[in-house]
């Protein structure tokens, strides 16, 4: 998307600061309210997931309109936008969570490592093991802390012996930054933990089945700032091994944790770009109005 540009020709020639500066005016101008074409680069070099022309309908209502977006490997991408803009709906498409809603209809293509996840031969349970999810409200199973983490690996048949399972549970809790707080109380119920600890337990549960992508739907909205900071630090550490997609209402959080940010508005993907650019110099007027608090 070309807006107005300061001429850089002299700079490109390697000369000193040009004597005459002029201003280039592109005919396209700046994306205004009516332009609903995605602004910014939707393609990445090393995509983990590739979404092409995704439409989502709830009955007659269209919730997502022709969204195309790449999610890069080992990146944290944040989805932001006002309530009802479709960011959570789109997130839930990425591991077919919307399948559970009978009136929901999804068209277009979503690929995980070149495999169409909506292909008939795809086992949804396996898919959700590869694309894990953490929800807004911590939702530990009404079981012990140990069982919460052990449940997934056990049903997926990932371990053969009790010792292996113990190791896996410990390891997952460690990666979720929770082990120190729970190692002496593994058999207490998961619900006995504080909100922030419960959320980290849910993350430990998600990473126990060794997913490739983790979807987070407002993971910190029920947490205090300290617990939020711990989760954000965790997200940063998890990025080494996983691809993370996070939906958040807090723009500061999106700015803190993500490398790329996508802005949704009324079902359209309005703009996507480097987080730094989106929050300092967005190219679409809707993005600008949203992040500066001028909305509606």
């Amino acid at each position, binding site marked *: 998307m070309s807006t107005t540009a300061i001429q*850089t020709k002299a*700079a490109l020639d*390697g000369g*000193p600061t040009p004597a005459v500066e002029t201003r280039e005016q592109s005919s396209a101008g700046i994306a205004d309210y009516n332009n609903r074409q995605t602004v910014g680069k939707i393609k990445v070099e090393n995509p983990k997931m590739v979404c092409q022309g995704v439409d989502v309908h709830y009955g007659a209502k269209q919730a997502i309109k022709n969204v195309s977006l790449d999610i890069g490997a080992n990146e944290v991408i944040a989805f932001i936008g006002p309530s009802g803009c479709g960011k959570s709906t789109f997130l839930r498409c990425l591991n077919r969570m919307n399948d559970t809603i009978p009136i929901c209809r999804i068209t277009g293509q979503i690929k995980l490592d070149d495999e169409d996840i909506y292909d008939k031969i795809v086992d949804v349970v396996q898919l959700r093991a590869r694309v894990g999810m953490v929800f807004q409200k911590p939702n530990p199973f009404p079981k012990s802390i140990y069982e919460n983490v052990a449940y997934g690996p056990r049903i997926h048949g990932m371990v053969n012996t009790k010792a292996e399972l113990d190791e896996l549970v410990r390891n997952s809790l460690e990666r979720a930054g929770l082990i120190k707080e729970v190692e002496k109380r593994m058999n207490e119920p998961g619900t006995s933990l504080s909100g922030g600890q419960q959320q980290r337990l849910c993350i430990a549960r998600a990473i126990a089945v060794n997913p490739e992508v983790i979807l987070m739907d407002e993971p910190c909205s029920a947490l205090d700032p300290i617990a939020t900071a711990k989760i954000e630090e965790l997200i940063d550490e998890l990025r080494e091994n996983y691809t993370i997609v996070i939906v958040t209402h807090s*723009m500061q959080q999106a700015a803190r944790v993500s490398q790329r940010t996508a802005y949704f508005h009324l079902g359209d993907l309005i703009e996507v770009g480097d987080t730094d650019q989106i929050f300092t110099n967005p190219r679409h007027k809707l993005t600008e109005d949203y992040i500066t*608090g001028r909305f509606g």
Partner: protein
Amino acid sequence: MPISQEAHTVKQFDVQLANLRNMVLEMGGLVEDQIQRAVAALDEENIAASREVIARDRLINGLQVKADEDCVSMIALRQPLGSDLRMIMSLINTVTDLERIGDGAKKIARMTLQIYDSANSPPSAKLLRDVRPMAELAGNMLHDCLDALARLDVDKALAIINSDDELDQEFQSALRRLITYMMEDPRTIGHAINVLFIIKALERIGDHCKNIAEHIVYLVEGKNIQKRRNLDVHTIVALAQEKTEQ
């Protein structure tokens, strides 16, 4: 992305931003007045007026402190993003440059005292010949800066950046003339050095105006054109990529 004209949902934020901008423009007006007074005092050999210019510099410094505080509190309390963030960053930088321009006016006033408030005989008119045209150029640049800031006019800001070269050239030729006078008649050296400080102050005012113009371009366009000052290979590559992306 240019500055949105829409109001913020939080009206108080609009009020604070408008107040800040008005304060910076007010400070700019004060600084402009200081330059005019300093140069007029030099012209009229007016000691009292020069002292007044020096005393009034405190007002400008006070405004800078106030503007800085307001910027910090807005960043802390409002967490500005996008054009709001660029507005605050540009204004905080502009305020620094305005304060330095104010120092320039004070410098001119101090030199006026050096020249006329002493037992020495006054300098010959030819030594001061270059001051007035340079002061006019610098004054115009500052005036245009404030105008461009008030209207968020990028084209005007770019014109200011280009016009700084003219002031630099004026300074170079004035400097050469001063050196010639000093070589011709060493008795002029004392005054010539004072005049040199004055024209140097005016030349610096031009540089600060150029900075302000660059802040305005950043504010409106979100592009930092200062980075082209020290071009290295990486910057050139980055700029080339930027160019192809557009």
